[in-house]
């Protein structure tokens, strides 16, 4: 259900561009207006979402950890899995964000004959997840060459490294193909594994279709059906300097590419893709486990009236003394005299 639905939406979007650009000639709409709107939605939507999340209260430290916490000096602490200091939290977060450390612990459960349950390491999701995200990131960094003039040196260096392999004369960007490959894997995983398919919704397939289309049109443009890159850079520079122009002769493939990017941007703040910002706000990842070392007071605890033992004894000291109950603070001499009298 979700699969078919997302597929139809993705096809409708592509057809919409073909129709809009090829038949109706709405080039300005697709090359300027929609990208601006999409960027605006992404930019403000992202910030709004983060601020909303930041306002939700996190009263206590939530240590879901898988290592020994800081304890007596002779018990070895797992400083990264169960950090007690800020540095440990930063290290744990960095490893999570850059290497997907918790996904590395992914296991696959199998039921065997006789009701035996086994767990085994399952590294493919981690591997392709990592390839996907890193490729995506590096492709975007490389794309800055369309948006920056002059092109800064580090992008050149990245291009040379990423394009180390050449096919005939042309640099073949590994990350471009890595992206396409990984998206395909992540999609097949959802379709082929029955349990994963069961929990997959339209919102899981849709971003994959969009990303697939972006990567596929990008690769088509670079290696198969050439586009006028200089004209596209003029367009991109026009957008970022707020003096947009739409040069002639840009292939419709590019319009599909940029429209799908716009779709992705506009969809981003309202979807699971917000995990990009959300990861940093995960209470189980971003807090040191120092519950036993420091007192954390729930900020919205109501003020409770308490009657401490001290106050209680002050109130009833004389009566207590009279019946011979033990006191923490003895009666003063005058009081004692008064009681006896």
């Amino acid at each position: 259900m979700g699969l078919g639905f997302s597929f139809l939406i993705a096809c409708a979007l592509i057809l919409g561009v073909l129709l809009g650009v090829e038949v109706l000639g709405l080039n300005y709409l697709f090359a300027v207006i929609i990208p601006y709107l999409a960027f605006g939605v992404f930019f403000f939507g992202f910030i709004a979402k983060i601020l909303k999340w930041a306002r939700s209260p996190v009263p206590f430290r939530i240590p879901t950890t898988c290592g020994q916490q800081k304890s007596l000096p002779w018990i070895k602490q797992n400083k990264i899995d169960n950090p007690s200091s800020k540095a440990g939290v930063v290290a744990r977060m960095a490893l999570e964000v850059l290497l997907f450390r918790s996904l590395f612990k992914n296991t696959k459960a199998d039921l065997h004959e006789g009701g035996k349950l086994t767990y085994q390491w399952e590294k493919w999701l981690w591997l392709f997840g990592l390839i996907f995200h890193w490729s995506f990131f590096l492709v975007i960094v490389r794309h800055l060459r369309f948006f920056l003039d002059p092109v800064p040196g580090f992008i050149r260096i990245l291009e040379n490294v990423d394009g180390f392999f050449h096919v005939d004369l042309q640099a073949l960007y590994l990350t471009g193909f890595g992206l396409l490959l990984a998206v395909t894997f992540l999609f097949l995983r959802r379709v082929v594994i029955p349990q994963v398919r069961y929990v997959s919704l339209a919102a899981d397939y849709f971003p994959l279709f969009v990303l697939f289309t972006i990567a596929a049109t990008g690769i088509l443009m670079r290696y198969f059906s050439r586009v006028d890159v200089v004209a596209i850079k003029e367009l991109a520079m026009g957008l970022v300097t707020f003096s947009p122009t739409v040069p002639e002769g840009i292939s419709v493939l590019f319009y599909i590419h940029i429209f799908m990017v716009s779709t992705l941007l506009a969809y981003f703040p309202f979807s699971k893709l917000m995990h990009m910002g959300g990861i940093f706000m995960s209470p189980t990842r971003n807090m040191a486990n120092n519950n036993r070392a420091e007192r954390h007071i729930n900020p919205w605890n109501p003020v409770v009236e308490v009657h401490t033992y001290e106050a209680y004894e002050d109130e009833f000291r004389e009566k207590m003394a009279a019946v011979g109950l033990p006191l923490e603070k003895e009666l003063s001499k005058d009081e004692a005299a008064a009681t006896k009298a």
Partner: protein
Amino acid sequence: MKNRNVIIGLAIFVVLITIPFWYGAGKESKAPELSLDTPAIQALDEKKCIEDTEFMRSNHMELLNDWKVQVVREGNRIYVAEDGKEYLMSLQNTCLECHSNKEEFCDACHDYSGVEPNCWTCHVEPEEVK
């Protein structure tokens, strides 16, 4: 404490995501004017590239690729263009014969679009020929 971290995080996000908008702020960016002012092109009756300009702009790397394959693998050195004209398939002796102002032509365009063909580590640039 928590709020401070959120603000810092968002500030980093905003700065990074808007790089293209502030990187060249105030500067005007223009596609390079390509100079066709070379003796070989001046001498042409009709100022036309091997194939039509549109095609050359987007597909010259494919063309060069075909040339290289033809020459190196098939041993065929003559290219017949769409309009029937014949050219020797050579990077140095054909393309750069006409476009001998490599810096104002090939390089200007490649710098603008951020590509760096590595051809010149083996092939000879026009200046070096002189």
